[in-house]
């Protein structure tokens, strides 16, 4: 349990504006007055996790274009850095790896050394089932099915400032709570911030909200009364700050996609300063067994959406960049060889992207050996050379300042790899 209402202290800005329900509650005003000169959260850090469900082909996103084995393994899917007629070439990152041309948006932050890529990342558990692999990655325990909590939920619990939890500390912009946020700590799953209020016809909505607020205020059950209070506070806070027509900063243009909309809402939450620390959302459609395409097609559209959405977000929150880190993850990679339907099947390692001002960027971290058959896992897959927990726990440690990584990732004692400075 944390001190309810405490989160309100943070949010001086905008609060004295017009409250949706007609005026700001006294305690909010008091809290604001008290804390105005002493913002508790100025140092609050935010992690934004994006789960790419379906298993991204890391070898197509960040291609080892120099590798002759790879060229052979993918007769119709291989891409090169060399410009050919009517084909967009890969973006040469370091003479060895090429970034998919649809991720051009990433090039600038990579050159600015704020975007790092870890290649060969994955789970030590060799399952190639989406379900199991996602489950293991989200619980953070690759060999334990029965871990009841998700790693991000545990992270919230380990942030080490119990008294300033808010209903918006952990938010997943998804229809249902993801496995990563299952657990003891309160976490909010919400797909549209605008719906976080009492709904209905405008003529009645305020009256209904008032009635419910009164009813819950007098509830005999503690849980219902306290949560009711908190819900109405959160609602007022959110709705009074939520712009009717949100205008991203820096003319950032979000793709009109699920991920684009989710990240836009996360940006809004960050700017409202309502106490967000752990944000989660997801991107779908990575299971490219059929016709994954090259510089156009499904895969190109997916990576285009991913990079454009992330970069729109990054530009939108420019003023907060020092405190925000974005990390992508995917349950496994795909086969080195293309299959019979111009796609790729379930493999082992993939790559992920980490964006932030404290990231040791401009590098492709990790180990990717030549893709000769003898170097592959089971003779077919990019082997996992970096346990995902290496990166996750380093991010938790250096960005969120969570020291007790054994609680975050039980049964794991590895060290970080220097992805963050």
């Amino acid at each position, binding site marked *: 349990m944390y001190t309810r209402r405490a989160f309100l202290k943070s949010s001086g800005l905008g609060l004295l504006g017009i409250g949706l329900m007609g005026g700001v509650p006294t305690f909010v005003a008091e809290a604001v007055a008290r804390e105005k000169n002493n913002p508790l959260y100025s140092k609050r850090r935010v992690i934004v996790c994006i789960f790419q469900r379906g298993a991204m082909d890391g070898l197509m996103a960040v291609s080892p274009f120099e590798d002759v084995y790879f060229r052979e393994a993918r007769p119709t899917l291989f891409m090169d850095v060399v410009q050919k007629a009517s084909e967009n070439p890969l973006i040469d990152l370091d003479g060895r790896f090429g970034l998919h041309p649809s991720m051009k948006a990433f090039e600038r932050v990579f050159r600015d050394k704020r975007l790092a890529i870890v290649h060969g990342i994955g789970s030590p558990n060799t399952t190639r*089932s*989406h*379900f*199991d692999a996602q*489950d293991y990655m989200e*619980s953070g325990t690759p060999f334990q*099915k*029965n871990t*009841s909590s998700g790693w991000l939920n545990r992270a919230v619990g380990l942030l080490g400032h119990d008294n300033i939890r808010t*209903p918006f500390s952990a938010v997943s912009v998804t*229809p*249902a*709570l993801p*496995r990563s946020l*299952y657990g003891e700590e*309160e*976490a*909010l*799953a*919400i797909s549209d911030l605008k719906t*976080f*209020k*009492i*709904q*209905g*016809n405008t*003529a*009645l909505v305020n*009256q*209904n909200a*008032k*009635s*419910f607020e*009164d*009813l*819950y205020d*007098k*509830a*005999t*059950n503690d*849980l*219902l*009364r306290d*949560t*009711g209070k*908190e*819900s109405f506070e*959160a*609602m007022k806070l959110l709705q009074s700050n939520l712009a009717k027509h949100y205008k991203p900063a820096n003319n950032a243009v979000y793709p009109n996609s699920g991920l684009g909309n989710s990240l836009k809402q996360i940006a809004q939450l960050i700017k409202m300063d309502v106490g967000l620390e752990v944000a989660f959302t997801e991107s779908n*459609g990575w299971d490219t067994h*059929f*016709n994954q395409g090259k510089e156009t097609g*499904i895969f190109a559209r997916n990576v285009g959406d991913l990079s454009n959405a992330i970069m729109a977000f990054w530009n939108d929150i420019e003023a907060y960049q020092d405190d925000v880190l974005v990390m992508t993850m995917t349950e496994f990679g795909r086969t080195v060889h293309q299959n*019979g*339907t*111009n796609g790729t099947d379930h493999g082992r390692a993939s790559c992920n992207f980490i964006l932030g001002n404290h990231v040791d960027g401009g590098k492709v971290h990790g180990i990717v050996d030549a893709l000769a058959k003898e170097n592959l896992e*089971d003779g077919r897959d990019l082997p996992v050379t970096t346990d995902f927990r290496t990166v996750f726990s380093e991010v938790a440690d250096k960005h969120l300042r969570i020291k007790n990584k054994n609680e975050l990732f039980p049964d794991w004692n590895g060290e970080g790899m220097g992805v963050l400075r």
Partner: protein
Amino acid sequence: MARQHSECVKNKNGLLFLILKKTLTLIQYRRLNARLLGGFLYKRANDVMLYQGKKISVFFLFFLGLCFSYAQKNPEVFPYKAAGLSEEEAAIHLLSRFTYGYNVNDVGQIQKEGLERWFFRQLRGKATDKELAEMLEPYADAMLDNKTLAEKYPRNTRVRRMMINDGYIPKDSVINGSVFFKEAYKNYLAEKGFKPEQELYRKFIAAKVLRAAFSANQLQEVMTDFWFNHFNVSFTKPQSAPFIPSYENHVIRPRALGKFDELLLATAKSPAMLLYLDNASSVAERPNAKNKIGINENYARELLELHTLGVDGGYTQKDVSEAARILTGWTIYPLNGYGNQNLIKQITKGNEVQRQSLIEEDFVFAANKHDKRQKTVLGKDFENNGYDEGVELIFYLSSRPQTARFVSKKIAVRFVSDTPQEALIDNMANAFLASEGDIKKILTAMVYSPAFWHRDNIYSKVKTPFELAISSVRALDAQVENPNRLINWVTRMGEKKYYYIAPTGFPDKSSYWINTGSLLNRMNFGLSFTSNKASGINIDLLELTRHHEPESPEHALDMYAKLLLPTTDIVTLKNRLSPLLTAQNLQKKVAKSSGADLHRQDEDMLAVNTRKINNRNRKSNNAMLAQVVGLIIGSPEFQRR
């Protein structure tokens, strides 16, 4: 039932008791003989019984019949008076624990029937349900067995493969979401007589809603839900998903009030569980085999940790591994596109199933995949005995005291409170052990425990979103026209039914369900409930009040609060809402939002068509009633049970 019968007599009539006891002993003696001494003695005992029976049978039967009918009418009274509860309060407590919801009429009815009689009738779960059967007709496919389902509703991925194999579409044209593919997919399904996978899931969930809302066997439905969550499987795992309808309908529901060990065994053999926790692919390790296949411990671990002993049940990793080895070879029958298609060839010769292997509908024990070495679990040795080894393991685990306690506590948490009293769990665990896991006996022990009726436990549970939605339907005698729309609300309130990923099932505690994210949605649910478009519910609010049209919003609140929240202290509710409801402008506002504009109404006064005005008035009045009911459903009182 014998316990109830004999006890009732003990209280009332000592002689009758003695006679009954003698009869029962004789019957038991006969059974014992039969079991211990085999056929010959069994026959003899039988003869003795017959001989004695001739002389005394009439006498016995007379008294026996008398006693039985007496017991039927008056089972031992539940100990609620000692807890200071009135009969009405006790009736409400009972209904809130063993049904999906009630209104004031139900409370009256079970008092008339007798609380105990009602409970034992619910325990039997044999009430015929013609109305429900009719309602379920459109969703009949959800009741099909796995084999039929696999043929009729093939998985999307399989349809795609079939389309390519049949040359229906070119190999490289399969792009999910493309218009061409969608069209081709639809045509292909129609041509083959297949139905889309998603349709099955929709039907299944719709049927679930209807059963919960309208089944006469409410306790059976509640227990089905409980056991499903205890033995959780999830639509999120695509391999397991197609088998989930049959899992609930054919594995769980028929055994929900049966014996725990039989239920456990049935789940262990079900394709849904075998695939969800991977036992279907767990096989004995072959050191020299080319492909790296072998033991998968997932199921064995959950069997010990979640299904039987509990996490503190005193087992080790070695027990888990050995249990997994015992269960190697337990897999699914290869159905249309599922499972190992060569399996049947491997274990049969002609029409004969080979030594030790076993085929039982959708379950297969493949002896050739079984680990034949010796195993030890919890100190008990298991010699190589094929399929029977696993059955023995499951029965052994079911009979452990840790299991009795773990399962009893879980039931108590569901039915009594988030933190049930130790004494209560003791009573239940004892009943579990004494009855060898008879679920009826465990529940009976629970309701006969004083702790069940303790005041602290009244309204102590928070309704899950599903319970809130269904209890609203039941409280208002509403019709469910679109069950899937109702279930969308349940999802929005934080319970995505059948999609909980982890094998633990949804946590059963109030704080899981009541949080900032979900609470506003519960209120919104209340407000939208009476709107057919939003909730899929059809409701006649006036019929509920027997067409006594409430005179004012305040009056309406009074009427509906009594109906929906009998005996709850509604003074607070009224005090809080009355100023609002009597406010001059409410009716105006409601009317406005319901589309009946008052200014227009004034103009209409001049109109000849007075019927139109009446309709409009009625519409505005109905909207006012809907408003009041919405506030009650969204109120804190209605969130509890």
